[in-house]
């Protein structure tokens, strides 16, 4: 199969609340020459609900996606940390649990070869595509923006299931931030949990968890938090008023997907990256970003193939909150 071609499993969030993630992921990949082919007829990974209620459903739901991916024969890019975790858990079962594999193969009528591996989009861009090549594409550095990378609890853990980065002090997002020309702030809530789906059932607990993370981001002097998960994004954004009340402060910290960060640093127009869909406007960051030299915009052009082709740098576009 062609290099830089992946199956794409957006997961439910990216077709809903995480629209900006989907837009920016596609835009950034196109710019990098990474082709994403959305899996045909994919289904929900089961998320938090399945594995809390039915251990087989927790394997079978991602298992169906794995079967579809096997047929497509390409490694799968997964942007959502929760989907990624579920798919990796299923992948581990397929590889190590013979009983589970046989049952799954029977129920989904396929035979597992392991040729289609599930990878997080972050891993694909930083590890597969490579930081060196990526840097060449980042022609509109986000100088003057101070960011923290927030990995959440699922992206790099548990290490024997995912394991593409250090489980206690991951660096991949930090590398993205640095590559984009922003300043990396040091903080200690990188791998704390945002509350996940507790946002729905125990918003009080979720609010406290988010408050702690936001507080640390504020102490670190961050202008924005960079994430790689739609649920982290949703919690960190939507719970800011609640967190503000809890800590008697006024949080207004934009939360960006790492793909949005990269897209901006590539000079892609903010709207194309979905930056206009945020609840907390990233306007402040965009303003701070100095105009890229010699900018001229081409928006929404056809897929740009081949890394040698220099895409024109998009000018700054005001994103609405």
């Amino acid at each position: 199969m062609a290099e830089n071609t992946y199956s794409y499993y957006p997961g439910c969030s990216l077709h809903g609340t995480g629209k900006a993630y989907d837009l920016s992921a596609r835009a950034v990949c196109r710019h990098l020459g990474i082709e994403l082919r959305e899996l045909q007829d994919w289904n929900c990974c089961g998320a938090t609900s399945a594995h809390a209620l039915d251990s087989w459903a927790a394997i079978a739901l991602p298992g169906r996606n794995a079967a579809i991916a096997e047929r497509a024969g390409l490694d799968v890019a997964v942007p959502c940390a929760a989907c990624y975790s579920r798919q990796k858990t299923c992948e581990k079962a397929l590889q190590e649990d013979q009983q589970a594999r046989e049952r799954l193969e029977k129920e989904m009528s396929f035979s597992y070869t392991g040729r289609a591996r599930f990878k997080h989009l972050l891993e694909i861009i930083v590890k597969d595509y490579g930081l060196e090549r990526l840097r060449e594409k980042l022609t509109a550095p986000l100088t003057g923006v101070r960011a923290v990378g927030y990995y959440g609890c699922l992206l790099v853990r548990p290490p024997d299931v995912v394991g593409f980065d250090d489980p206690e002090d991951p660096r991949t997002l930090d590398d993205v931030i640095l590559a984009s020309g922003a300043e990396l702030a040091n903080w200690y809530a990188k791998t704390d949990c945002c509350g996940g789906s507790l946002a729905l059932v125990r918003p009080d607990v979720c609010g406290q968890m988010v408050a702690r993370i936001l507080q640390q981001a504020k102490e670190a002097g961050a202008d924005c938090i960079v994430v790689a998960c739609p649920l982290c994004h949703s919690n960190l954004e939507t719970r800011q008023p609640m967190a503000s009340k809890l800590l008697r402060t006024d949080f207004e910290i934009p939360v960006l997907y790492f793909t949005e960060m990269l897209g901006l640093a590539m000079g892609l127009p903010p709207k194309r990256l979905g930056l206009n869909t945020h609840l907390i406007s990233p306007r402040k960051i965009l303003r701070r970003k100095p105009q890229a030299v010699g900018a001229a915009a081409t928006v929404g052009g056809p897929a740009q193939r081949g890394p040698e082709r220099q895409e024109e740098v998009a000018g700054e576009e005001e994103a609405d909150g």
Partner: protein
Amino acid sequence: MARIGVFVCHCGTNIAKTVDVDRVAAAAARMPNVAYATTYLYMCSDPGQNIIKEAVKEHSLDRIVVAACSPSLHEKTFQKCAEAAGLNPYFSEMANIREQCSWVHSDREEATAKAIKLVQMAVARAYYDQELYQSQIPVHRRALVIGGGVAGIQAALDVAASGYEVVLVERTPSIGGRMAQFDKTFPTLDCAACILTPKMVEVASDPNVKIVTYAEVESVSGFLGNFEAVIRRRARSVRMDACNGCGVCYQKCPSKKIPSEFNAGLGTRTAIYVPFPQAVPNVPVIDRENCRYFLTGKCRICEKVCSAQAIDFDQQDEILKEQFGAIIVATGIDVLDHSIYGEYGYGRYPDVISGLQLERLINAGGPTQGILKRPSDGKEPESVVFIQCVGSRDDSKGFPYCSKVCCMYTAKHTILLKEKHPETEIYSFYIDIRSTGKGYEEFVRRAQEEFGVHYLRGRVSRVYPRGDKMVVMGVDSLLGQQVEVEADLVVLATAAQARSDAKELARKLNVATDRYNFFTEAHPKLRPVETLTAGVFLAGACQFPKDIPDSVASGSAAAAKVASMFSKPFLLSEPTVAEVLPLTCVGCLNCQSVCPFNAIDEVAFVNPLTREEKKVAKVNEGLCNGCGTCVAACYSSSIQLRGFTDEQIFRQIETALAP
């Protein structure tokens, strides 16, 4: 024609519950060569053994088969019983119908049938038993103690007190070990140095003890009673006989910034140094890797200031070859390096320290003269958090085992801090408190109740800096709440682990280590200080983490084993060893390559009939453990294991396979 007696044991209900012992005895009575068969409740007991002895007399038995437990438990018992009954002790056999039958089966019918089969096999084998005799081994009545910590010192003192010579080999420049680094000891709070240093002096002045410091055991050969150890005494660059210990050399040494191993990396030392002022021997060494003269060829200040002319830059490593009858391993433990813990900062935060480092920080002889100052800025901490089980009971990053001493030393640390500064807020995160020793539980209670240390049951998920404080985030699982504590200093009760080179030493000594590289004892309950290699004993924490009382006790225990061995005029070796039949041996020495005990030598052999001379293998009976590997490896079937001859094994197999 043999007359075999079969004795089937009930082992209370252990066997009788699952195996119909009466049917086994009845079946045995009908087996060929069996003259008598009976059962008894506990065959190993005194009345049980009397039944055997009387049956031997009454029925003129010449061999006995005991169907009971594993031979590893009671083979010796019944061999002695056979001997007492007037038989050669090797005319006794055991059929294991407990561990290999009743304990692992539940179907009574099938278990009984299997027990009968096992007895049948033992009977078939007993028919071919031969008289075997133990041989005498001379003993070199000198002991080698490897490791000069408190366990090794105690072992050396006790062997010496029994009147035998001891060589105590220590790797570092001074004896004293871990205990010398400690401030005070639990649960009595007497100062470690006050009780250890007199022992160090005592062992140094004992005429029976020769202390070799700054030295390591390079290799060991030989066997029980007759070991030869090669010891490398590293060049000290200071003449032991000339140095008067005045200390001017290390006061004047210009290389002062070397992290002090003795102070757990916290303080510094010079290139010529004694690890601590009470060192024994009180003779400095030059650390050649850091000495300015050895690095650049210039300096020699120590030489100039030494009034005793004791500095000798040209000194060479010295190789000592010594004979020993027994070896005591007392190499102690390492402490887990907490830099594997990302959640505690990967060892990057200066104010997150290990318990051992705290010992040095509160010790009057330590880098801060006993005033607790935190490493980052020298501030005296107002709040301290202790985190227990760092690396212990942690399958994912550390070890699954409990390091045994940390609950106690953490309680000790908290009390010591509170005694000096009662206003210090102290928190201790724990999983469980394990304080099972004399006065231990009371001691922990004192920390909690009398000194008001906050014990929080739960794990710490993260430690990170905020301003000049460390934030400790954890859970109080009794309250079911997350807690966040700001501390000036965080102390980790890091796991005790095997020495990094324990496995290497184990290989030299031919003793086993467990999966954590701790030395393995011969039996976890009944032979705790012996190894499976005869003549090699264990003392102290090299076997498993031990506190001071346990280390001292095991040192004494190992010494007692050695002393009792040395008190005999000669040792007896097991006759169940391999034997080469030189007539058919072709001298290929395949056996030598497979022998795990280096027990096979090559010797010349003259055929008595043809007068032809050839090279053949020969088993060193002192070294052979009777494992039988060589027997299986021999191409020409020229090796037999006494007591386990091919004849015996094949009859057993045939019986097992017979319908």
